[in-house]
């Protein structure tokens, strides 16, 4: 797999391939169940979790409702603290901006803090085209980058790799990127971590430019916040001379009081920790300490359009904790790559079709990548009703309708390939709205039951290839009722 998500097949095909990969299944089941159980225990420790969750959702909703206000407040505060703020409407604008900012430093290398936003816009590839090499410094992102691979989890990007695969990647690839792997490297976690530490330390000490994202931006003081577990982020944020942060506009929170809520919600939901290990905050530039130059690139890339959708906008509350991935039975079996974006799992299934639009076949398949079991909603620390948004987006796929694109209202046509389904659904509604016809149909099904095939043709094959069909009984419930209880007293709506 190369470093781009473009041209990914629709979800069912990619997911089916993943279900047959026994090693991937074993890696994912082990990892997701471990994190899932730890999260449940960490959350259960707090008596006020439900209130915290409600507060998190309310703070995000209020901020999103007044996003224009808080973003301008943030811009003013960052500027006053010595930073420079840039606005990027889409991925191309953001990539061009960051490329120009790096070029202006005269450097050809940057170190990176783990960042979802820069993956979303494909920044590394854009920088590479401009002759700038970006080094990922998060351990898992390093594994993914060295392996020419793609992340498959928000928090644990290399969740699909086990440690012997990681050792092989380190041995094979590290020399091409900098300090080679130590001789005789084994697959013990301590040795692998030490190899990564030695390899990365070189980068931290030589890099003049760093690129980061941010988990939060505090509008009242213009402070950015990065939450991480390894300390690599702290190195990137403090050692280089120039820091460029690319952050989605929905990451702003009004005040430090609001931030406090999320610094409780996020670690328990993501890594099951009571307190996050490395929380870095910075406000513009500080004389004699840290980067001399700080650029903040505020990224829209479909967020304002998403905000215009009254049901779908709740996806913008997401704080990227990945709790929904870890409980999702579909993610556990399909793996992250099947979602075709840096945002896998349930949150990706509602975020990707909104940020990118739903016209592509992958994007149109994502809202259906769920059994609607609701486990994601239950664990979401900001109470995103993911099943509600999934069904809302399914409607957009099959029915089309008005959406906002680039700030203007456009009316989407229904996606192709749903004509037979649409006809079947309408026919079902007609039959269900005409009980006389329904009864006749049921009787026909019962009378012909000995003729029913054991395996269905057409779309029904997807059922009967692996599951036996139930036998149709000789008598429907309504016929049994009429036969045993006599002619019914027809009630309202009982017309045929």
């Amino acid at each position, binding site marked *: 797999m190369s470093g781009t998500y473009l041209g990914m097949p629709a979800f069912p095909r990619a997911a089916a391939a993943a279900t047959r990969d026994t090693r991937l299944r074993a890696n994912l089941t082990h990892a997701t169940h471990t994190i899932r159980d730890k999260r449940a225990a960490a959350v259960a420790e707090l008596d006020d979790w439900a209130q915290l969750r409600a507060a998190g959702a309310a703070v995000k909703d209020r901020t999103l409702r007044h996003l224009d206000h808080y973003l301008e407040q943030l811009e003013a505060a960052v500027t006053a603290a010595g930073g420079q703020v840039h606005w990027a409407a889409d991925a191309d604008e953001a990539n061009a901006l960051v490329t120009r900012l790096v070029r202006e430093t005269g450097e050809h290398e940057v170190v990176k803090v783990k960042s979802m936003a820069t993956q979303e816009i494909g920044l590394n590839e854009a920088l590479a085209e401009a002759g700038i090499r970006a080094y990922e410094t998060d351990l898992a992102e390093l594994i993914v980058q060295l392996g020419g691979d793609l992340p498959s989890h928000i928090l644990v990007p290399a969740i699909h790799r086990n440690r012997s695969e990681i050792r092989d990647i380190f041995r094979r690839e590290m020399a091409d990127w900098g300090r080679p792997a130590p001789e005789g490297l084994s697959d013990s976690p301590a040795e692998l971590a030490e190899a990564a530490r030695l390899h990365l330390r070189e980068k931290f000490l030589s890099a003049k430019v760093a690129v980061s994202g941010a988990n939060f931006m505090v509008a009242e003081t213009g402070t950015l916040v990065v939450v991480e577990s390894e300390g690599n982020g702290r190195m990137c944020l403090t050692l280089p001379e120039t820091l460029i942060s690319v952050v989605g506009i929905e990451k702003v929170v009004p005040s430090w009081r609001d931030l406090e809520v999320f610094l409780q919600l996020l670690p328990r939901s993501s890594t099951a920790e009571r307190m996050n290990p490395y929380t870095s905050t910075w406000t513009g530039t500080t004389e004699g300490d840290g980067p001399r130059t700080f650029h903040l690139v505020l990224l829209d890339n479909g967020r304002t359009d998403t905000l215009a959708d009254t049901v779908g906008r709740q996806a913008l509350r997401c704080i990227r904790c990945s709790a929904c991935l870890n409980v999702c039975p579909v993610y556990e079996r399909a793996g992250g790559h099947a979602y075709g974006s840096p945002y896998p799992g349930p949150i990706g299934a509602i975020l990707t079709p909104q940020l990118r639009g739903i016209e592509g076949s992958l994007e149109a398949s994502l*809202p259906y990548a769920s059994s609607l079991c609701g*486990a994601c909603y239950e664990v979401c620390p900001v109470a995103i009703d993911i099943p509600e948004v999934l069904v809302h987006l399914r409607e957009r796929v099959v029915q089309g309708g008005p959406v906002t694109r680039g700030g203007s209202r456009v009316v989407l046509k229904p996606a192709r390939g749903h004509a037979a389904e649409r006809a079947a659904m309408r026919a079902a509604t007609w039959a269900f709205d005409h009980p006389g016809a329904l009864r006749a149909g049921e009787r026909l099904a019962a009378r012909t039951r000995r003729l029913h095939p054991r395996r269905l043709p057409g779309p029904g094959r997807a059922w009967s290839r692996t599951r036996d069909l139930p036998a149709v009984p000789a008598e429907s*419930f309504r016929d049994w009722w009429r036969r045993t209880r006599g002619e019914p007293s027809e009630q309202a709506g009982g017309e045929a």
Partner: protein
Amino acid sequence: MRVALFVTCINDLLQPRTGQAVVALLERLGVEVAFPEGQSCCGQPQFNTGYRQATEPLVRRFDRVFRDVDHVVTPSGSCAAMVRDNYPRIGAKAAAEGRGPELADAAAAAVAKTYELTEFLVDVLKVEDVGAYYPHTVTYHPTCHGLRMLGLGDRPRRLLERVGGLELRELPGAEECCGFGGTFAVKNEAVSVAMGADKVRNVRATGAEALCTVDNSCLLHLGGILSRQGAAVRPVHIAEILASTEGNEW
């Protein structure tokens, strides 16, 4: 108390035994049950696949058919959740699209009176021992919509624990989805079946004779896999266990 059975379309056509069990059980508990014949389907297949507007006639029909009763009881967590969670959404969207409050009113009336069977028994009739007898080992799978949308909690278990002769076997990973998911079962066949196969492995590991749920739709999927595997485990709806009495197994 005027009580009507909403049997659901799947039970009407494929599992009439379950509907008959609900009638027998409620009558045994002294409840007179009506079956308004104008009823059909709650509209969940259409709604969950994205055809919201195709469900609107069925919301109106539900309201009209059950207007004169105090309680609507249904042996399906999923269909009860459709009425309680999604009918109000359908009504609100219709109003937002400028089609008036009529559908929202119909939805509100339906929500107020609709109960899943075990909720009705425990919350309205206030019974947990229904006088049932079922001398078998049973494992219980709490289906997702009952568990997470309706919040049935331990009501089904409390009922099962009081059934004479019944031995309840703990199901590992009980709260994980079985992989049915309506049209998900065919749109994402591979993942659906992988989920179902894992669930069935857990079910078989319990050694129970019967697999019980509050939803026949999930049992259609799990039963289909069990049957294809040639497993002896019997899929059974909770109503059929609760309707069983000494000497008269449903």
